[in-house]
């Protein structure tokens, strides 16, 4: 399957390239990757950690609980597919966390974690075609929340 994986990665990169060139388009995700991190805020505005927590819980938005144990005790059934996110801000700086949420395939091309701020995936349903999973400000809110997990 090496071949298939390589193709997927190549297509993925092509899309990241396309975003950079096509920066004018209104709903195209725009971000600049520097050494596998995204240092600049996607919106230029500070994130709202309280809303970020809500986005992380919401099954139709971040749905992070599907795969991660998090310090969100009022919610039952946290998934175990990814690492426990307790103390994640001690392990990663903001720019790395932003990269991780925007497009984790840059960090690990084979990851199961969705890219929350890219488009161009194969065979997306009409309803979500051309749309990112989270909006730019929602990503910033999630980052602000993750930064509280010390």
């Amino acid at each position: 399957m090496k071949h298939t994986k390589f193709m997927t990665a190549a297509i993925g990169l092509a899309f990241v390239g396309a975003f950079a060139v096509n920066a004018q388009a209104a709903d195209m995700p725009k971000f600049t990757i520097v050494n596998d991190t995204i240092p600049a805020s996607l919106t230029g505005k500070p994130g709202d950690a309280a809303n970020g927590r809500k986005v992380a819980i919401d099954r139709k938005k971040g749905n992070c609980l599907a795969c991660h144990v998090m310090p969100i005790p009022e919610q039952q059934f946290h998934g175990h597919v990814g690492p426990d996110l307790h103390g994640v801000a001690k392990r990663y700086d903001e720019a790395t966390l932003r990269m991780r949420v925007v497009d984790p395939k840059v960090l690990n091309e084979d990851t199961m974690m969705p890219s929350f701020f890219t488009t161009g995936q194969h065979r997306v349903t009409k309803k979500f075609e051309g749309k990112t999973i989270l909006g730019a400000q929602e990503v910033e809110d999630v980052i602000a929340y993750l930064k509280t997990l010390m």
Partner: protein
Amino acid sequence: MNFKTIITTIAVLGTGITLAACQMDAYQAPNPNGSELWSGYKTATAETRAMQDDDFANPGMPMVDSAAALYNKKDGEANMSCADCHGAVDDPKGGSKGLPMKGVSARYPVYDADTKKPINVELRINKCRTKYQKAKEYKYESDAMLGMTGLIALQSRGIPMMSTADNPSDELNAAWKAGEAFYYERRGQLNMSCKHCHEDHQGELIRAEVLSQGQSNGFPTYRLKWSKLGSLHRRFRGCNGNIRAEPYGYGSDEYLNLETYLAWRGRGLPMEGPSVRK
């Protein structure tokens, strides 16, 4: 009936048979399942397992019973029943034509020389309906079709799935290859392939669900969520839709290829349809 003991015995037997087959086969693709081959039964809830273990508690059975009546009923312009050609559904000799239902589901999909494509049990039933009974096809996800595939699956209970479609000389090899490519291809807004859930993270919790190997040996399956029997292709559509990928059609080439590939991934697993799942 002590279904569990039978299953375990046959599982052990089945592994033996598979191992023997491996040694004889010239070509053998590596096993992608990991160190152990297991059915979704293993991680199903105690509640659904108990239902599956007892045919009287299995909520899929009433539909199967209705299909048993259909099986013996004359139909179509030919005015013939399935039993007229195949004998009683549990006749190991398969009537005058020597085509028993026993073992069919464990062997399918097979290659159909007419279409040059895989044919699964659903399409095979419809082929007999149109070609021999001169009757109308059953709709793919209709009660009649689900009951009939359940009835036929029941005749394969405990028989290990067998597929040699990975062998380049097998007529299904092209379909197997296409199915494999589908299995590993990312899709949907969440951009995952089957392998991310059912290979890489098998046995792990995704929210409240334990991910199984996504094997096909239990179909048709009674899902409490559906509150009825459902086909393998319905499950495919669900697993596609959950990651916001546009599903393919019931009986589509894509799903027939995928079904062919899954039958190979599950080779050696005893059949347990109609199974019960959350």
